[in-house]
């Protein structure tokens, strides 16, 4: 079998602490050593001078939004958009049309994935039955069926007893609990942040405190239940501070932030465009700056997209009636590179850690590293390529991106999954 060699690129491999100009060899879907690569004459050299090479990205929060009719289509769409965004591993949230709270649903979706996906799509199981927050789901059976995390995202148990016991029970299976911190009693009809922009517009109802109270809950529960709780889609500046303090005290808590919360604030909703209606909502510039800082100082472990596709006719309605959520797989890396690159403390190692190695570590999977023998999940990024993102050029019917017609500098040009090219510009 031919050895492929990515020649002359800048290799970023946070697991091995590598950021240097280095060739990378792979064969038969696996990464091989330099000596093995060089020893064969059956070699295909790919010139990647001026390009950045790193392990395939891993997304911790991705919604497939399946209905039973289009399950295959949505999986194909997510994997197509994921591979175009450099993702080779996605973690699907349990809202799969029917809630993934039983092994049969997991098996059904796994079958759909194996037949439709170009990349690795992992599944999470719900923490409670129907994600209703009332009765625990059969976590042990779900683990046997192959889930790698437990979560009720985009919901979370409002009943503190259920959440605490669920987390405690989950600790037995050594899988993380992913929590989207949201107190519904403070945000039930919330459609935007309670900030100056939404106030003028007559919107609001999803204040920071609805997140912060549940961030504190997760920190406390993680401690008493000795469970790894991962907070997803953090949006408030005070949440960052609470997580930082908890980590200093040795908490097992981890956290992620979305590309849109790193790059946008509530002013984006000024034209009532539902493509800026996210969960949690976009907050103020002061929050955004704290999120960037939290990511760069390691308080926030990773970047997750919260990718959530909706057909145009469902999303493009009156703002308060529109569903929350935006798509983001294809733009995530370009958005983050553009936002973070000029910041003090930015490095490629940090960015790729946050988008690949750290989420793998949280899920306890082997991705996010370029070790000899690892799956050849590899991305080639051209930092100088200018491009304009448009959902018109995509195959799926979802158009709910916050970055429609946005100009970017820096683009993924090729994605390999297990050594096969799954995306190329």
């Amino acid at each position: 079998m031919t050895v492929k060699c990515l020649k002359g690129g800048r290799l970023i491999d946070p697991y091995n602490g590598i950021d240097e100009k280095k060739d990378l060899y792979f064969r038969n879907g696996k990464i091989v050593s330099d000596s093995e690569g060089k020893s064969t004459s059956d070699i295909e050299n790919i010139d990647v001078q001026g390009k950045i090479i790193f392990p395939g990205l891993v997304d911790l929060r991705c919604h497939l939004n399946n209905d039973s009719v289009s399950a295959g289509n949505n999986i194909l769409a997510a994997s197509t958009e994921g591979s175009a965004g450099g993702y080779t591993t996605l973690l699907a949230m349990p809202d799969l049309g029917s809630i993934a709270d039983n092994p049969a649903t997991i098996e059904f979706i796994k079958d759909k994935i194996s037949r439709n996906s170009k990349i690795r799509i992992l599944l999470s199981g719900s923490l409670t039955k129907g994600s209703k927050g009332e009765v625990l789901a059969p976590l042990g059976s779900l683990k046997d069926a192959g889930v790698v995390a437990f979560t009720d995202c985009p919901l979370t148990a409002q009943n503190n007893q259920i959440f605490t016991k669920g987390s405690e029970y989950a600790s037995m299976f050594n899988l993380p609990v992913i929590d989207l911190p949201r107190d519904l009693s403070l945000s039930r009809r919330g459609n935007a942040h309670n900030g100056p922009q939404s106030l003028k517009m007559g919107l609001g109802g999803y204040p920071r405190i609805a997140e912060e109270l549940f961030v504190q809950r997760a920190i406390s529960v993680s401690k008493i239940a000795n469970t790894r709780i991962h907070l997803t889609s953090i949006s408030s500046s005070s949440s960052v501070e609470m997580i930082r303090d908890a980590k200093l005290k040795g908490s097992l808590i981890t956290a992620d932030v979305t590309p849109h919360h790193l790059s946008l604030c509530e002013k984006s909703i000024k034209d009532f465009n539902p493509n800026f209606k996210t969960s949690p909502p976009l907050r103020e510039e002061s929050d955004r700056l704290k999120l960037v800082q939290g990511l760069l100082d390691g308080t926030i472990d990773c970047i997750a997209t919260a990718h959530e596709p909706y057909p145009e006719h469902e999303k493009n309605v009156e703002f308060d009636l529109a569903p929350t959520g935006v798509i983001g797989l294809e733009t995530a890396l370009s958005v983050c590179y553009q936002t973070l690159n000029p910041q003090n403390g930015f490095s490629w190692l940090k960015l790729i850690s946050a988008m690949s190695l750290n989420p793998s570590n949280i899920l306890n999977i082997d991705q996010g590293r370029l070790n000899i023998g690892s799956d050849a999940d590899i991305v080639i990024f051209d930092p100088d390529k200018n491009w304009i993102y448009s959902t018109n050029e995509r195959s799926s019917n979802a158009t709910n991106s916050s970055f429609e017609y946005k100009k970017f500098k820096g683009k993924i040009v090729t994605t390999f999954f297990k050594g096969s090219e799954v995306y190329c510009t």
Partner: protein
Amino acid sequence: MEKSNWCRKSLLGIEELTNKEINQVLDLSKVFKNELSDVEKRSDHLKGKRIVNLFMEPSTRTRIAFEVAAKSLHADVISIAEQSSSLTKGETLRDTAMNIQALGADAIVLRHSSPGSPLFLSRIVDVPIINAGDGAHEHPSQALLDLYTLQEKLGSVKGKKITILGDILFSRVARSNFWALSKMGAEVTFAGPSTLVPKRFESMGAKVSHNLKESLSDADAVILLRIQHERQSSSHFPSLAEYTKIFGLNKNRSKWLKEGALILHPGPINRGVEIDSELADSSNSAILDQVSNGIAVRMAILYLCTNSTTS
């Protein structure tokens, strides 16, 4: 009437209007008010035009005022309420509006509970959209008629102190009035309970007060808002009785007002809740002026939007 140099096809809110545009509406309102008072002078500027009132929320006076305004200009008026439309059959606002356009409407007057819905519609259909209240966002015709009424009584509002009292958080009237009054140089205070008048309104440029006496004492006019206990659930204040006890305007408290200070209310009034019956009918009250001025102002809005230089 000569062609106007009004270039705004739709009236979506006051925030986006220039002072010149506001004055243009008010000047034309004066002309129409004059016409209304004299049958001889009445004219048929909108003859042959079809105005559709699309009211997706209950409304009596705004809907009727727009109807009377349109009919006074000899337009054909069709009123559609949510209960009688296909929206109850699951049709979206977008489809309803496109159908209305296809049926030959020359303007749509929209009342809807979703903030931003008039802007949403204006991007879908080609006909002018006139916002008759969108959620807690804006109610531009109400603000323009309030401004008209205040100017009629006070002369200019420049430098005048206007207090808007009541449920500010959920009020489109408060927001639109704030933009109209502050653009024209008035100093606006939002007053009421801390849950309905949060401090963050200061970010708009308004003063915020939770003290009734203080907020009344130097006001040249007070605009009272209807307290809608049914809308905010019970989480924002305990009861109507408690509201009345702390923030209700009664004969006794009216002594805190300056001599001749005006009282306005967009209606419908809850007599005995936000205002005493006696005060509502007193000489300080401009409430009925608001209603009659509302016709002239809406005539001006309909005329300008259907004759804008862009349409």
